[in-house]
């Protein structure tokens, strides 16, 4: 059990705190609590799980007070080992070439690695999907090889190109859309990861496993031209 305490967040929020660390087993406990909270019928506006916290927001302070009482009554009955996840395994193509890898040089210099070594370290690991957040369909994947662990940019970029692959701390990600952000960009995937038309909305879901493989610019353009739907992506890249 990692759950520690419930903390008030401003005047209309709550935080469920699961400690300072991040790991697959902490994430599995967070997701178990999340699924339990979702069915409590709280008058919340949002329930947002992440690596080691769940943030809940409310319409009013009164709603928060009532929900806090309810959560405190129910929390002892949560059994974190009872959730099951239908997870998929993905093999996702990434082009690491210079035109996409905006921060490759910074990564190489920080860790004294060649470009080929960075690519190999990044694409030789199987990643766990912790949760979806930050922006629509943005997966937090981890953990990356220890020799690639890099802090975020000092000041976030105003605009990161859509489908960029980034790394920050122990994690890697894909930006589904153009966005400001602070991750170090090392490549790009050739298709979209998010669709409002598909019931899944986000290609990756918490618990999914993802592996990357390097492709060249020509292959990138070939796949990009196909403009694949979520259903075709599931057929082609998931197992």
């Amino acid at each position, binding site marked *: 059990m990692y759950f520690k305490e419930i*903390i008030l967040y401003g005047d209309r929020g709550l935080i469920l705190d699961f400690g300072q660390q991040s790991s697959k087993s902490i994430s599995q406990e967070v997701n178990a609590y999340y699924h339990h909270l979702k069915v409590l019928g709280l008058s919340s*506006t949002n329930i947002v799980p992440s690596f080691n916290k769940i943030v809940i927001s409310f319409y009013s302070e009164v709603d928060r007070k009532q929900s806090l009482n309810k959560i405190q009554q129910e929390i002892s009955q949560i059994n974190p080992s009872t959730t099951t996840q239908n997870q998929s395994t993905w093999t996702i193509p990434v082009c690491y070439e210079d035109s996409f890898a905006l921060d490759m040089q910074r990564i190489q210099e920080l860790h004294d690695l060649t470009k080929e070594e960075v690519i190999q370290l990044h694409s030789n690991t199987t990643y766990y999907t912790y949760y979806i957040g930050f922006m629509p369909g943005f997966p937090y994947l981890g953990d990356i090889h220890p020799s690639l662990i890099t802090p975020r940019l000092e000041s976030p970029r105003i605009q990161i190109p859509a489908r960029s692959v980034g790394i920050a701390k122990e994690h890697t990600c894909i930006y589904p859309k153009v966005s400001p952000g602070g991750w170090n960009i090392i490549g790009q995937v050739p298709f979209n990861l998010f669709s409002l038309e598909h019931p899944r909305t986000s290609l990756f879901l918490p618990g999914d496993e993802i592996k990357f493989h390097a492709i060249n610019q020509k292959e990138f353009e070939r796949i990009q031209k196909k403009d694949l739907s979520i259903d075709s992506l599931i057929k082609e890249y998931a197992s």
Partner: protein
Amino acid sequence: MNTFTITRTGTYLTVQDFGRYHYQHLGISPSGAMDPRILKELEKVIPQHANQFLEFAYVGPSLKVSAGAIRVCVGGDCNIFVQKNNNTQIEHQPYTSINLFEGDELTVYNTIDSVFGYIAIENGLGLEPCLNSFATDTKANIGSINRPLQIGDTFNIKEDVSSWKVVFNETVNIEKQNNFKVYPGPQLNYFSDLALQSFVSSTYTITTQSDRMGLRLQGAPLISHISHDILSEGILPGCIQVPSNGQPIVLMRDIPCTGGYPKIAILASEDIAKIAQLPPGSHINFDL
């Protein structure tokens, strides 16, 4: 059918409502009006707004009626004119209903000493909701219309106006404020007493790099003695996060749903609308 067209966009013209909830776990922000107080005041004049409002920043739009007639109300501190079909120009007041007939063109000029203004249209804009809301997040491309509005965008409203009686909301009270009492953020302990002292004793300026996602401030840098890089966690509108350059960012309605910078403080929910109305160059103070 009653039809009008956008003939001038002004700036940052989008469709908004009171927010899109229950999707933040998929990375979808609450969005909604930057100053929902104004929507509440407009509601008293046009109760049947169908939850579809136009929001603009600094410079308002022009709307021209090409068929039928509509009834609108403008909220915010701004000058409003209607160019009638017969070429006369009439000035209108905010929070007063305005009847627009075929050929009439409404123009809302710049907001005065504030940022955001709104237009409510009786029976709404004839839009379908997207994920149970009409709010627009232009960075994430989420919304009934998932982009800022453009010249030529045309709205068709099936229902006819219920009454042409001019209604005026006399009780509008939109407070202005530059000092904000804040709650401690989840990473308050990432900042030394000295840094916290700077945070509450210095004046911060809202910079031009500010939008519906966040207000970037400039002032005494707040350097953490622990780290400016935390495990990303859920954030709420009003959070004050500090990247490693030490310059705080107040997160607004189009929040990144989780974030990895330490949060020194969080605004009271009611103050988010007040800080949203302060134009770049405004000086603000925080009190913990």
